[in-house]
């Protein structure tokens, strides 16, 4: 949301707003958290001792769940890039006639 001015927004302004909108899109948050979690947890799984794998019913659960989280995270990021957030047409979008009495 840029400052409200009477001037027409330039293309550079629009590009900047869109970049911010992408950065602050919920899918970016979910995607990047899951990529970080996925990498850390699958690394923990890859270096797990035999004892730890035996603890989890002989499944290397950290490796598998880490890889699954990585895939989910990349999926969210891909979704965000494929369908970027739509910017409001004008910056009057927050005003609503019925939001105050």
């Amino acid at each position, binding site marked *: 949301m840029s400052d409200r001015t009477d001037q027409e927004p330039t293309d550079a302004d629009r590009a900047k707003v869109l970049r911010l909108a992408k950065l602050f899109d*919920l899918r970016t948050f979910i995607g990047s958290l899951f990529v970080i979690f996925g990498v850390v*947890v699958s690394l923990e*799984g890859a270096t797990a001792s035999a004892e730890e794998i035996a603890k989890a019913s002989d499944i290397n659960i950290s490796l598998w769940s880490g890889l699954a989280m990585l895939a989910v995270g990349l999926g969210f990021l891909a979704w965000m890039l494929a369908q970027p957030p739509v910017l409001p047409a004008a910056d009057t979008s927050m005003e609503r006639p019925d*939001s105050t009495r």
Partner: protein
Amino acid sequence: MLLAQEAVDLRLDLSTWDMLLLGTYFAFVIGIGFALKRAVKTSGDFFLSGRSLPAWITGLAFISANLGAVEILGQSASAAEYGAAVVHYFWIGAVPAMVFLGIVMMPFYYGSRVRSVPEFMRLRYDRKAHLINASTFVLASLLIAGVNLFALATVIEALLGLPDEWAIVLSAAFVLTYILLGGLSSAIYNEVLQFFVILAGLIPLVIIAVKEVGGIGALFDALGARNGEAFTSAWEGTGPGGANAFGDVFGIVVGLGFCLSFGYWTTNFAEVQRAMAAKSTNAARMTPIIGAYPKVFIPLITILPGMCALVLIPGLGESGGVEYNNAIPALMDAYLPAGALGVAVTGLVAAFMAGMAANVSSFNAVFTYDLWEEYVRPGRSDAYYLWVGRLATVAGVVIGIGTAFIAANFENISNYFQVLFTFFNVPLFVTFIIGMFWKRATAGAGFWGILVGTLGALGTYVFYKFIPVLEFRSDLHESFWGGIVAFVLGAATIVLVSMRQQPKTDDELRGLVRGLELRDMQEGELAFYRRPVPMGVGSLVIAAALYVGMSLL
């Protein structure tokens, strides 16, 4: 005793990387608050997200707001105590009510453009009904926020060995910060994030637990042999004289499936607020229906591990053993290695914050719009109410910490909730539903309906617990019948009072009653997966199919 020893071992097991996961999560939570801060310019942005969110976000937040640590630990505890019949809470006790809310009631809530559920009560009935609704909601929110804090404290204390006072204050401070910054949007965004982290934490645990017990079929066989057939069946023993702890068929279907569940899901502003934040009437109607799909499968990550724990954790629920409420933490301790454990601990902490944040973000809206603006300081500027809302948020969190101690005195948190819901929600539901569909209901009838209905529920409880006149199979069974009593008495009172009073005019009722709707529905043009009716029916079909599937196990 046992758990205390295990907790010491576990603390050593939580690797530095696992702590890093938890820390990363907290950083994201606060990051969302800062990112959304720029979007909060009016009270409407703070309390209702500027009514701008897409349905998938509000739908997942709708379900996540009800997937707090209390629900996860409480439902798995109930599963270990009562058995498979706990699925009733989901398949008959939630999904039909959520579909009903989306299809039938949301056009009135969203279409009338009210800012809260109590505000609808004020416009449809009068200030007396409004005051009783707003103030009971505010009190219940604070209590439930406290219950969530208490649940978190038990988890953190058991798993991390951090003193519970610290855990409470630290986590409450995070919730406070992100709601203060980003308002409802912040709460909703975090709820969706939490939803996925909770799944990532619990699904691996369930996979391991089910493998350890030799599959779901073997689990049901073992528990059936050990605790009786009714324990592994949803409907067995629900006939007259049966032993199913949930009680009789009528109590389950009408008491839980209609009165209690409709009372909870359709009047609870903490839930309805998520739908009110949606960007259109259709998105608002889709909100609970999108939520119904994950809701159908939540038993797999709550009830299933609870039942597995009964086999896998020796002495669960017995004196000197692990408490039922710690069934999931005990499984995590026994089976999760580094990495998966870090995600699961983060998931439980996330679940706590979801529950707490939902209560705080709905509490501050009702306090500001319905109590402060309506009764204390009306007619001030929007900036003033935004400021009041922020102060109310701080006060709500502080009082929540205080009420955590009240929660500590109740053994089974789920039962405690049920008792609360019977008293407050069912009379409110009957008042709303009659108000939406019967134009003749008068301004004064709402207050009397709520009062008499609540007294009915309270009376049933008192005559069961303290003056043993009525007999029920369990506290749950009592709560279902208390709900039925509250519904019938409330409805009868509203009709009787309305008959003796002057009805409201059509102008006063515009947007609030069937036949005087303001909405314009263009559902026919949308793809089927964006339409409430086919999607709602689809979730009901899945719930019914799961009942059938479970009876075949």
